[in-house]
């Protein structure tokens, strides 16, 4: 959508002053909050407690980040979250993309039912499924990182399939017909020709899957049984809780920043794509 920028016009801008104030207030608050947290992550606990965070009288205390990363186990949490996000993003594509494709191409026994089930599954609250899933995990002896990876993959399948379905539906059947004439099998046609054609959709849906897995908290809390498999959200909660005993405020705020940064940086680069994806996805009423 190309928009022509209106010429600067004092009268017009003045009429919008209240509007500017509202959004500036919101953004200003965020800037203050983030700068203070960054300041605190580079300060000593004493400076934080006495309210002298942004003076940096004793310099920048980068060692807070080293403490957080090493002694407070953020490196483990971070690695786990990265593993969960990357592996689930790939896994969910492998499951959802082929299904979305056949659903968009053919009507077959149960295809309508599967579509409806996918849409309904997106709005099933986690509380309705975690209890039996917990039972299954215990009974089948599935533990550790693989359990959370499997759960995250399954958690994202409905959204991913529905999102990709719409994109496959827009592709012309000519591609497949041409491929068939050239003797390309249907399966190969999908992986080599059709899937790459919806690359923009794959990127968008993967960003959303990544954000969702990185920020997931509820299932992580329930299914995390050891430090070795703790992702960042639950790990940060543990750091905050142990603060009362360690008294290391600087380290805690450094941990907050480390957890905050990855998705923040992703957003800085991808904000346009993310924003247009929020409303383009499932939001159709």
């Amino acid at each position, binding site marked *: 959508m190309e928009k022509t920028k209106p010429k600067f016009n004092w009268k017009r801008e003045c009429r919008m002053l209240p509007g500017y104030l509202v959004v500036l207030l*919101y*953004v200003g608050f965020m800037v203050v909050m983030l700068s203070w947290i960054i300041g605190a992550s580079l300060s000593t606990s004493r400076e934080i407690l006495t309210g002298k965070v942004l003076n940096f009288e004793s310099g920048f205390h980068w060692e807070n980040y080293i403490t957080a990363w090493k002694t407070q186990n953020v490196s483990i949490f971070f690695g786990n979250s990265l593993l969960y996000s990357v592996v689930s993003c790939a896994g969910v594509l492998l499951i959802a993309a*082929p299904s979305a494709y056949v659903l968009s191409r053919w009507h077959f026994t149960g295809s309508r039912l599967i579509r409806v089930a996918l849409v309904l599954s997106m709005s099933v609250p986690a509380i*309705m499924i975690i209890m039996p899933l917990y039972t299954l995990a215990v009974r089948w002896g599935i533990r550790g990182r693989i359990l959370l990876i499997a759960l995250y993959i399954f958690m994202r*399948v409905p959204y991913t399939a529905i999102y990709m379905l719409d994109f496959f539906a827009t592709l012309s059947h000519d591609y497949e017909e041409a491929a068939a004439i050239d003797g390309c099998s249907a399966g190969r046609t999908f992986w080599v020709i059709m899937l790459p054609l919806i690359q923009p959709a794959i990127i968008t849906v993967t960003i959303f899957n990544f954000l969702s897995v990185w920020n997931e908290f509820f299932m992580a809390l329930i299914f995390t049984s050891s430090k070795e498999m703790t992702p960042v959200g639950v790990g*940060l909660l543990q750091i905050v809780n142990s603060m009362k005993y360690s008294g290391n405020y600087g380290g805690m705020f450094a941990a907050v*920043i480390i957890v*905050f940064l990855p998705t923040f940086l992703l957003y800085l680069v991808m*904000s346009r794509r993310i924003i247009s994806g*929020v409303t383009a996805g499932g939001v159709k009423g």
Partner: protein
Amino acid sequence: MKKNKTLIFLFIAPTVICLLLMYVYPVFRTVIMSFFQVEDLTADLSDWSFNGVDNYIKIFHTAGFITSLKNFLAIWIVGGAITLSLAMLMAAILTSGIRFQGFFRAAIYLPNVVSAVALATMWVQYIFNYDYGLLNQFVTMLGFDKIRWLGTDGKLWAMIAAYIYGSIGYYMLIYISGIEGIPADLYESATINGASKSTQFFRITLPLLKGIIRTTITFWTINAATFYLWSKLFSPVQTEGSTIVPVVYLYDTVFGGKGVVTRDAGAGAAVGVVLTLIIIAVYLLTDRLLRSNDLEY
């Protein structure tokens, strides 16, 4: 195009397994479990004993659950009214031809992208902190005494305020996409006929956004009913009456927590079913009240 049955089967099977394993089976089992006396989640089916609606009667006679429902209502109604109105206000501002709207949209949506645990920690450990927090610095600057924002009385509202701040952006984006879908000539002719900006908003924008408002109410209801993370971070170690919400109650009942004598998976399942029924009821109600009368434009 020719139907290739083997291909269809191979391509659809993993998703069907996912649906059955992750959604269909667990939902049915949770519903059934809510009618049984089950203490431990890992108990064998043979240890389940049918007890009708006793689990439901039990939870509605438990003080903790009733308190959590009251807190849910506060979050849902007060939080919802404020969030959705502010989101609508922001959406109206950011579609009115303001400068830097791309930047503002991105900035206001930002809290939805970053880790909510990190965000909630910022609020608890900085904004609301008694000793060095932003709000108390502001209060002392104005010459007043420091306030215990996270005291028993204020904690729920402090939590709701922080949650609202982070949620506005999402609903704002939905409203913006709705507003941008309204044809510009409607506003042009309204302007020619002398309708003010606010008249246009109430007479054109709002009525045409009915369907979208309905959607956002449903989303908000789901988020309020399954509210958990913020409550956990505002009362991290021990569940407190001031911030307990139904899902926290469910978690403590099923997985154990301070003050829970015997675990009760059956009661936990009943809490889940009650929350789901609330969501469905709200959905059906808003669907009836705000039926979009298929306006053609």
